[in-house]
């Protein structure tokens, strides 16, 4: 998307958001329809849990719908939305009520060795067992977030800084550190075993 296309898209999203907040259900459908996919994918990649991502995506749009999250005049739309999703995820991890759920979903611990939960679906299992997911789990949530936002969501560094409310320099250094760590992890073969056959079978 070019810069101009991006500006026009953002202005359009502002208009839709305003209409949705004032109660226009059609605008709400459009707002959610346009943005649900990216919010969901971000949460899946950040948390590594497909089912959890549904819950958190719903919570994200709930907060938008309720007007619970302030947005300054100068703040662009997409980073603001990602920030809400990010805070929903962090909130969930931090929340007392969800400690057990976090442990069961495999998010607990930097080792990535989440307990197997009988209710985790095949989908989640496939995700967890992929080498990429294993790599991402090795990162701290802070570093994982910048990698996901840059590599998968294709946000600019400035947009990532807006999303995570960090200085631009910190975003750069975290991204740099994260990639170096991923490179070292790949080189050291420290990852839990993954099935080559899964990667070959998919796609």
């Amino acid at each position, binding site marked *: 998307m070019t810069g101009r296309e991006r500006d026009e898209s953002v202005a359009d999203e502002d208009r839709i958001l305003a209409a949705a907040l*004032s109660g226009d259900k059609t605008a709400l459908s459009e707002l959610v329809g346009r943005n649900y996919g990216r919010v969901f994918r971000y949460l899946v990649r950040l948390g590594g849990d497909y089912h959890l991502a549904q819950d958190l995506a719903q919570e994200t749009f709930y907060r938008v719908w309720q007007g619970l999250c302030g947005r*300054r005049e100068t703040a662009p739309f997409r980073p603001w939305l990602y920030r809400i999703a990010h805070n929903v995820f962090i909130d969930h991890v931090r929340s007392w009520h969800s400690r057990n759920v976090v442990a069961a979903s495999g998010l607990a611990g930097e080792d990535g060795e989440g307990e197997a939960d009988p209710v985790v679906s095949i989908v989640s299992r496939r995700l967890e067992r992929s080498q990429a997911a294993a790599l991402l789990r090795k990162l701290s949530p802070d570093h994982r977030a910048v990698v996901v936002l840059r590599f998968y969501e294709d946000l600019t560094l400035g947009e990532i800084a807006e999303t995570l409310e960090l200085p631009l320099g910190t975003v750069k250094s975290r991204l740099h550190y994260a990639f170096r760590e*991923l490179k070292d992890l790949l080189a050291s073969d420290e990852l839990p075993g993954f099935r080559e056959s899964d990667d070959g079978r998919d796609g």
Partner: protein
Amino acid sequence: MPKTGHPCGGRERHPAPWPAMREELGLEGRDFDAVAAVLAALPSCEPPPGAAETTVEWLASVPRPGAFRRRLLAAGPRPGGLWWTLAVLRSQTRVFSFGFWAAAALVSLIATLVTLYLRLAALSGRIDLTAFGLALPFGIISPVIAALGVSYALRSLENGPWEVELSCPITPAGMAMGRFVIVLAYVTGLSLVAALVMGGRTQPLAGTEILTAVVTTWLAPVLFLGAVSLYASLRFSPLTGTVVSLGLWAALLTAGHYRPGVGLVADPGQAWLSVMPAAMLLATVALLLAASRAAGQAAERAGRAAA
């Protein structure tokens, strides 16, 4: 198309920001490509079919913010930018009563008329006046109005709705500075009127001399005394701000009266030699910075009293 038909059955084609990212990270090409290739192989996870529609239906069923809140949110991003700030600044004018505007104008008018009389009398040789006497109202009264006005503007710290004000989407420093600016703007307006009244009736000065006289005998003292009052009011109390600023002013005027040339009240020709105006302007900057910090502490002080 994923073979399983499931949203997570296949690999997503990620956008390839690789060249830009490679440059951002400053990694060796091979190192970056190895990592990127693995990351790109993350199984794609699209949302389940109908998830967005289900979310919309659910959102429509939960209790919504009130009608007014919805209209307010739809009116624009909150908090806003420049227009919001200007609206808040304009709102601060309501803090000043009609009595304040009238009293300040009256005092300024009296001082102007007195100054006019003295200057005309001095020009005609009827009286012999020092620079001290010629300084009214620019040199003496304007700073007093500024200092008292700032203390008055911050009276809500002691017995007004400061807590309510601080719970609004505005910073304490922003509110204090806004009121400071309003007082200064009003004092400037009164001084301009005074200058117009006196213009042409006293000996005219050359262009640069006017500027120097304005800065040294009016701007520096007004800013300085206003800043002293602002800081002392926020740091201690509005009453303390009044006492400290007026006491300091009396001391400076006395010093200037007895030691012409080093005081702030000097003849235009000597004004630029005086260190006092320069010192005042520097002190003003320091005081305003300190006042910004003190604005937040004012709330803590009030909180301690209530705890």
